[in-house]
């Protein structure tokens, strides 16, 4: 049932709010070391932004404007998490050891960079991939079955 719809307010609001959501998710991702947040909730917020864009523009419109294969994304995330665990073997340390150091960055000044951030990046990509795979697989309804 497709009626001729006019979603002007929803589409205009989405193009503004999706950027706020993405910014908030990146804030949550980087705040996870010293404040509430982290890879899991950051990934959930990012996928909430993508779901919002899907609801406003439809699945076909998003497939052309955001051409990401989410099934590839969670494999990449798991590989990154595994690689950061294996990376500690290079320094003769046990599996999943972590360390941190202070660096003088150009804009941010003296910043603490931890290797746990790389593991968190893997969690982030995995959560986005799995959430979007589940939601988009459910949203693809029975039309394929009819065409077979």
């Amino acid at each position, binding site marked *: 049932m*497709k009626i001729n719809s006019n979603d002007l307010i*929803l589409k205009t609001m989405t193009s503004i709010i999706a950027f706020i959501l993405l910014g908030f998710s990146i804030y949550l991702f980087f705040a996870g070391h010293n404040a*509430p947040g982290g890879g899991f909730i950051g990934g959930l917020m990012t996928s909430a932004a993508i779901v919002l864009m*899907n*609801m406003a523009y*439809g*699945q*076909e419109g998003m497939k052309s404007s955001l051409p990401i294969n989410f099934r590839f994304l969670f494999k990449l995330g798991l590989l990154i998490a595994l690689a950061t665990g294996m990376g500690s073997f290079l320094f003769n340390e046990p599996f999943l050891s972590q360390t941190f150091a202070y660096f003088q960055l150009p804009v941010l000044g003296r910043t603490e960079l931890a290797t746990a951030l790389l593991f968190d990046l893997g969690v982030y990509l995995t959560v986005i991939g799995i959430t979007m795979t589940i939601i*988009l697989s459910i*949203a693809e309804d029975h039309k394929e079955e009819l065409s077979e």
Partner: protein
Amino acid sequence: MENALNVTRTIMEISTQVAIAGVGISIFMLLYRVIKGPTNPDRAVALDVMGITLMALAGLVTILLVTTKLNDVVLLIGILLFIGTIALAKFIEKGVIIERDNH
């Protein structure tokens, strides 16, 4: 001087508790509308306002516990509520939440 500080703290605590009681009463009145509401849009709007009162409750608990760690939670509830309400509204209007093609 220290006496004034204590008085202010007591007033703050009492007014926060009164506000929590008010928000709690309004949540129960909204719950009545969710259960009783004659049509589905009534229930959707009542759930939306219930989420907003939940945001207020999180903010008040933040004041009561004297912490800033719950500020993200308030923003998070607002975002999830917005997306959930849009999904409900699209489902009530069109029967489909994510359309497969735009033409």
